[in-house]
């Protein structure tokens, strides 16, 4: 008898679990989707800062300066000697 009760309870739980998994996943609220998009934008801006897009003037310690223009060089490449 005990076995029967145990098996029927176990059977019901399995059915319940299966039923809940088959439910359609809840949609994310729109606000959350926007936050993710903002994070992606920030990363893009940071990348743009490191790349020298237009003309840049480099001012050195010794008082000299020079202007550099290149399409895809980064500020880390700028030097004074």
């Amino acid at each position, binding site marked *: 008898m005990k076995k029967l009760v145990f098996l029927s309870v176990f059977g019901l739980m399995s059915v319940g679990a299966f039923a809940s998994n088959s439910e359609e996943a809840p949609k994310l609220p729109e606000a959350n989707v926007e936050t993710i998009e903002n994070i992606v934008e920030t990363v893009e801006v940071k990348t743009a800062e490191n790349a020298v897009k237009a003309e840049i003037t480099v001012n050195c310690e010794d008082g000299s*300066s020079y202007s550099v223009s290149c*399409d895809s060089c980064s500020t880390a490449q700028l030097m004074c*000697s």
Partner: protein
Amino acid sequence: MRFLIVFYFLASISVCNAQSRGIVYYGHIESPGKGGPAGLDFNAYLAFDKEASYYITAKDSLENQSELEKQQTKEVNGKTQFYLGKHTLPQGKQVYYNRQKDSLWWNKKYKEPVYGREKREKINWKLESETKTFGGLTCHKATGVFRGKTYTAWYTKKIPLPYGPWKLQGLPGVILEAYDEKKEMYLYFKSVEYPVQQNLTVGPIVKPKEDIQYNWISIDEYKDLLEKIVEKNKTKAILIAKQMGGDVTVNSGGIETLSVELFE
């Protein structure tokens, strides 16, 4: 009685001297060839008494290096300025003016330290009626040409001494703010202490031990030196372009990018 007269005489001399001592604090932005105030913003001050004035800027002890690092990139007139390395000196960039000798002594540094001395160049100031107040002191406007640039200066008659920041001088009162048309030399007012009661050191410029071998040069020698530096910088620009490689174009400028003082 005699003692009292002598005491009164000495006291009045001391009071008169204290009355003519003062100090003005400025912000100093020097941006040769940049077309606007794109240079680093340094602290500066002008100390003066009846005989002389002493101006100093870009001095290590007057600056917070981390604050200067924040200015590493500046954008003015759509152009980006990038500052590499240290732009201050332990002894600062100084200008000392002695009225009796009617001469100025100054120092700066390119690759090597430079110490210069020159007779005061008279600026033909045009006094105008416009006024402005700085630190509670009424200032009058004046305009004048100095070494290739037209400067606007705001001077106060409340301090009737002919001094000013950097090499600007010769007005009927101390200059509290000055700038040229493009603000490539922009000396802006911060605060003033006048009269100053305590003792104040007003120059002269003392060379540090390591600079003893550098002689005081004339303004003509300075012009020649600038021309030589321009030539060296052209070669340097070619080398930098090679080192950076790729599609890089490097241009070094003329004298106007080295000095706000332009010579004919």
